[in-house]
């Protein structure tokens, strides 16, 4: 009887593919529409559609006891499209470059500093906590937008999905508490605030920066685009270097 039930389920599951992709698309678009209609910046950060979509799907899979591998293979088409989408990121990068030519050197230098800091701090913590190599590679590229983090973490041998979740949480924390931190250390300069938010807290931080002041938002967008490029260059070189000299 049990065998019969199992085989019946496994025969049914391949048909679930049509459910996975439309479900993800509808869920995300609906949550984004809700998010866009919210004015309050704290609520806006908390109802981030990527964060909510991932949480809802994760909760569904865990509670319904559905294997992730099956979900992943059903939604493979979406994951494949991530690669051309990353290439398309060159467009906003180019658009931001033309905005900041005169301040470029300082912004590039501070963005790079921020990225190196994020990788070094995470690496030192992984030594302090005696974390396994796979986990330490998973936290090496967190100061960047999620798709870049996914792909860099993957190339370092880390768990890319864990990095993605951490990147989203970091963005949320930054969006919620970043400006309180600036007030605490008495930094009110738009450029300082914007570049710091864009470097440390990427898209979610940038959304909060735009809500704070359009100029802060503009600097944050530039820093976010630059940190995508700089992380892609710096972290794959820096992380193996840190592993070599400190482990």
């Amino acid at each position: 009887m049990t065998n019969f039930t199992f085989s019946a389920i496994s025969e049914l599951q391949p048909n679930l593919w049509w459910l996975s992709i439309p479900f993800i698309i509808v869920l995300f678009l609906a949550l984004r529409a809700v998010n866009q209609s919210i004015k309050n910046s704290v609520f806006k950060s908390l109802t981030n559609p990527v964060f909510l979509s991932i949480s809802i799907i994760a909760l569904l899979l865990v509670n319904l006891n559905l294997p992730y591998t099956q979900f992943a293979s059903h939604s493979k088409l979406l994951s494949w499209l991530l690669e051309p989408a990353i290439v398309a990121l060159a467009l906003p990068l180019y658009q931001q470059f033309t905005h900041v030519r005169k301040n470029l050197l300082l912004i590039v230098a501070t963005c790079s500093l921020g990225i190196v800091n994020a990788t070094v701090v995470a690496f030192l913590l992984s030594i302090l906590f005696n974390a396994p190599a796979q986990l330490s590679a998973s936290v090496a590229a967190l100061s960047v937008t999620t798709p870049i983090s996914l792909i860099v973490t993957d190339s370092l041998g880390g768990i890319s999905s864990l990095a993605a979740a951490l990147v989203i949480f970091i963005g949320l924390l930054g969006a919620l508490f970043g400006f309180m931190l600036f007030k605490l250390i008495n930094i009110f300069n738009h450029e300082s605030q914007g570049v710091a938010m864009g470097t440390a807290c990427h898209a979610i931080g940038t959304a909060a920066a735009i809500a704070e002041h359009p100029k802060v938002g503009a600097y944050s967008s530039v820093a976010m685009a630059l940190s995508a490029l700089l992380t892609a260059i710096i972290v794959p070189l820096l992380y193996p270097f840190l592993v070599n000299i400190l482990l």
Partner: protein
Amino acid sequence: MKYLLSSAIILLCLACAKLIMHFIGGSFPAPLLAMVILLVLLLSGIVKEQHVKPCASPILNIMPIFFIPAGVGFIEHLGLIKSHWAFLASVMVLVPITTLLLVSSVIAYFKGRENND
């Protein structure tokens, strides 16, 4: 036609990057190299913004949908996350705080703490 050209440029950059990485080896992610190639083409004026825009804009607009399935993958590692929660929590708090403090302080050092623009 414009969609065809735009998608062809993006896919060609990706294909070139994959070929380059295949021949030189190493673990550098090909899509990132492709992004750099496209950026260089745009900055040098070989490819114009309006050539890439028709496909790039809509794909960027719905980009989060593409990484949601990958993002859900953390549920495969719940055991690992539970056993190292203190490490992950401290990374999650200290990485953004130190980065925000460092970057904002360095720029404030050069540009001042108040608004001067």
